[in-house]
């Protein structure tokens, strides 16, 4: 099944690992507040780094949720359809998802490639290459979700052959 595919496992492991980054964000933000009020020496890196870390999690969260097919869905019409129609609708939805994600991957890849080529930086005092990194990560995650959707399409197509659920 699609949930056990290699691609789903990659998304799961990456998401589980990245989830600890939230803890890091909390810690560095608290550090910043302490440095500002208790020590009187505000940092210059916490602000940018916390945005980059949070965005990392947001982006990785997409494939993480998608591997379990848990993106929010309205199912009340779907649930009232006869089982045979349900299977076709499910396949259609996976195909539509595939269409969106492949186009998104295309756009994100161009964006990522350009940022990577020029080593795009934030243009602030720190001037870290955060945009190059994040845009690349976004393209990778969009691609990952596209491949996940392929496994969903395959699963839904196979499912058409079986009677019942």
């Amino acid at each position, binding site marked *: 099944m699609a949930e056990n595919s290699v691609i789903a496992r990659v998304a799961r492991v990456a998401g589980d690992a990245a989830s600890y980054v939230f803890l890091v964000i909390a810690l560095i933000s608290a550090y910043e507040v302490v440095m500002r009020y208790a020590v009187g020496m505000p940092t210059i890196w916490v602000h940018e780094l916390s945005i980059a870390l949070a965005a990392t999690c947001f982006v990785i969260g997409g494939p993480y949720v998608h591997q379990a097919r848990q993106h929010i869905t309205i199912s009340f019409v779907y649930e009232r359809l006869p089982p045979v129609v349900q299977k076709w609708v499910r396949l259609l939805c996976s195909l*539509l998802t595939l269409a969106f994600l492949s186009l998104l991957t295309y756009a994100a890849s161009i964006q990522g490639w350009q940022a990577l080529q020029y080593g795009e930086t934030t243009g602030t005092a720190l001037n870290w290459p955060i945009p190059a990194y994040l845009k690349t990560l976004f393209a990778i995650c969009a691609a990952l979700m596209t491949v996940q959707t392929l496994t969903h399409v395959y699963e839904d197509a196979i499912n058409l052959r079986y009677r019942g659920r």
Partner: protein
Amino acid sequence: MSIEWITVLMFGSMILLLLLGLPLAFVTGLIGVVFTLGLYGVDGLQLIASRIYSFMNEYALVAVPMFIMMASLMERSGVAKDLFDAMRVWAGRLPGGLAIQTMVAATIMGAMTGIIGGEIVLLGLLALPQMLRLGYDRKLAIGTICAGGSLGTMIPPSIVLIIYGLTVNVSIGDLFVANIVPALMLSAVYMTYIFTRCQLNPRLGPPAPAEECDIPLGRKLALMKGLALPLLVIFAVLGTIYFGIASVTEAAAMGVIGSMIASAIRRELNWKMMRESVRRTMQTCGMLLWLSFGATAMIGVYNLAGGPTFIRELFTGLDVPAVAVILLMMLILFVLGAMMDWVGICLLTMPIFVPIVRELGYDPVWFGVVFCLNMQLSYLTPPFGPAAFYLKSVAPPDISLNEIFAAMWPFLVLQASVLMIVVFYPDLALWLPSLGR
């Protein structure tokens, strides 16, 4: 293609795809990319990628996972249970006392959570069995939990208000402060309703047996001691935001650290709890943010096609008083709310509505409050009423989804009344933030 047709096609196909069961995030995203391709060709797709990229780079957005994590930590500690038990001291032998106790606990818990879900699940596990055991009217019990549990997004911190503030560019701190009075009004109206109904018909909410009401003093003190620190964390977080000591994001991060310290002192902190909390945060953020990415794509192309101007002319062309335009917007939000998640609604409609609201001479902070109140309605209305689904996931199996939705009606009427009061008396929302200026 004319903008009239673009509008009809976009929103028509959105509703069709939503009903088909395509995930919301992909519905709006798909419409975004397809219309971009059709109107601006392949090169236009770059616009979508760059819009999504700039969306995820907002600093205030970092507060979202922080508040979700703070709530996840609190939910996994025994704080909620202790809070619920401690409220029994107040409830005593009032008619409907247990339901009122639940509502008070829900209101306080609302200050720990900024998002719907966890609180309803907790109340469904803690309060529902108790009320059913005492022989409460099932509908009253169910409605109390769903309405009370939804207060989490009304009482600051509120993720709804963070996203609203980001979308329309107003101070999130002001929004939080403005929401306090309407949120407490909502909670007070619920309690009055429960009290009145149980007063008229005591069989709806029988009091607890006398021996259960007498909690020994030692136990009371122990409860209070365990609660002191978590409550202190909540007040510290909110206070920091109100007095402008730290940014919303920093306050939220301090809230995470504070909740961890509080659970450590309560001897509840362990790796399992941490792991579950961060994973839960990851999952919620993944859903929320990708929903936002999709909505950003769709509204981006609609903006380019001249949608906002078209809608503004449509609204201002109506020869009606300003308040009628606001009421029309409320109606649109209500209808969308029955079918869509609030994130999608906020990102899709607010960039169009709020400039009109400003033009009409209303305060966007006030509009954020009425938007938030409107979304309270959306949690309870079928067919897409998340509150019902959350409760269903933990309720006894003999409680059906239909029964849950049937129990919502009185509370929906109450919510709608409070919404109307705040629409007609904007000062209820704007009074408190004006004090700070």
